[in-house]
């Protein structure tokens, strides 16, 4: 690879999260709890992308995610790709899939919902791609995926 094309340094071992919409970068960081990380991470913001125009990327050294952890991202950035790197090689590529249930991630936009008035975790059911909505387990309010706000 030519030197000028490499916008963020290569990774020896760890995870690369690519194709993050730049507007969602900080939500992705927060969902993965990267602020609690001890290993090094490189964040590329507003990089050029053929597919997206602009994108963001996160490279995290010596950190590997479970499918459950990764799928939490689907609420804010359903089209990100994850690459697992070992010894500078991509050994696995993953896409995120919306889990059937989201616990403690999404805020209910119904201010009369119990979850907004009681110290408790929220819980949402994914009603399928076609519908594109989440339903609050408690008050039954449906929220469109494009309007999702995180807790």
């Amino acid at each position: 690879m030519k030197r000028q094309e490499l916008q963020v340094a290569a990774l020896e071992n760890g995870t690369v999260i690519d194709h993050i919409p730049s507007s969602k970068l900080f939500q992705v960081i927060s969902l993965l709890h990267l602020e609690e990380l001890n290993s090094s991470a490189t964040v590329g913001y507003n990089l050029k992308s053929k597919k997206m125009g602009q994108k963001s990327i996160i490279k995290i050294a010596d950190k590997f995610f479970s499918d459950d952890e990764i799928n939490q991202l689907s609420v804010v950035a359903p089209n990100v790709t994850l690459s697992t790197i070992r010894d500078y090689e991509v050994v696995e590529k993953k896409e995120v899939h919306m889990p059937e249930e989201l616990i403690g991630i999404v805020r209910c936009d119904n201010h009369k919902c119990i979850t907004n008035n009681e110290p408790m975790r929220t819980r949402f059911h994914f009603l399928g791609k076609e519908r594109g909505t989440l339903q609050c387990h408690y008050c039954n309010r449906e929220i469109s995926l494009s309007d999702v706000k995180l807790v």
Partner: protein
Amino acid sequence: MENRSLVTIANHSRERIEYLIRMAQEFEKHRNRRLLEGRIVATLFFEPSTRTRLSFETAANRLGAKVIGFADPKVTSGTKGETLKDTIMMVSSYADIIVMRHYLEGAAQYASEVSPVPIVNAGDGANQHPSQTMLDLYTIYQTQGTLDNLDIYLVGDLKYGRTVHSLLTAMRHFSPTFHFIAPDELAMPEHYKMYCRQNGIKFVEHQDFDADTIAGADILYMTRVQRERFTDLDEYERVKDRYLLSRAMLSKAKPNMKILHPLPRVNEIEYSIDDTPYAYYFQQAQNGLYARQAILCDSLGITLDDIINDKISFK
């Protein structure tokens, strides 16, 4: 322990609904029984609702239970900042079952998840009110002899009316035809119409509310068109009298037709209708007692067989 709470009947099967109806029938035959003797029923009303509370407390008393609780949220610690969970944990250490009315939506579901004793939802905000739906279903069954293939007319506030939405969902097992009659601002929301289409429930929307329109009704379910629901008060003034049921409008009604109303009524059913055989809203309220007796028993693990075999307690 199996959670026997009643939060919603939206997911109840046809068999489950019919089972609860059979239980209610037993209580209609004999309402005073000692099936819950020695038990304590707590009624927690975080939002006042006199009718529903009296109905549940009567049900508990007629089953021989003792009742504790509060009718006015001002007397509880919630106003001091206590969480719902803490209140539920405290009360569940005293009572065998908790009947709860709450102004927050989803409160009953949450309470049922944290409570060691069954929770009976007596209404959670605009969300669910399953005992009302149960008594509506029981009344329809009682007056028509079946729940199947009925023409049910819903009139008035179909947008915010929790009772009509719950009735719609609960009736999906019984191939009904629904008829919607409402002002534009209070029309049946699109997602309920979608629900009907997905579940094969037939529905017709009507513009007029007159003798010809309702001539095919088996059940005429009236609700109140409330002023505070309108954003445009001119619109309210225009439509407010269009959804009032007068005695003259019953001229073509079928002989089996019954008028239901969740009460309180204001003026949407002319008072002279009360004397006609079509009026059934007071019996409907009375059925609330039997439906709630069935719900309390079922949530406390008392079966239909227990009730049928109970020969001594009412003699």
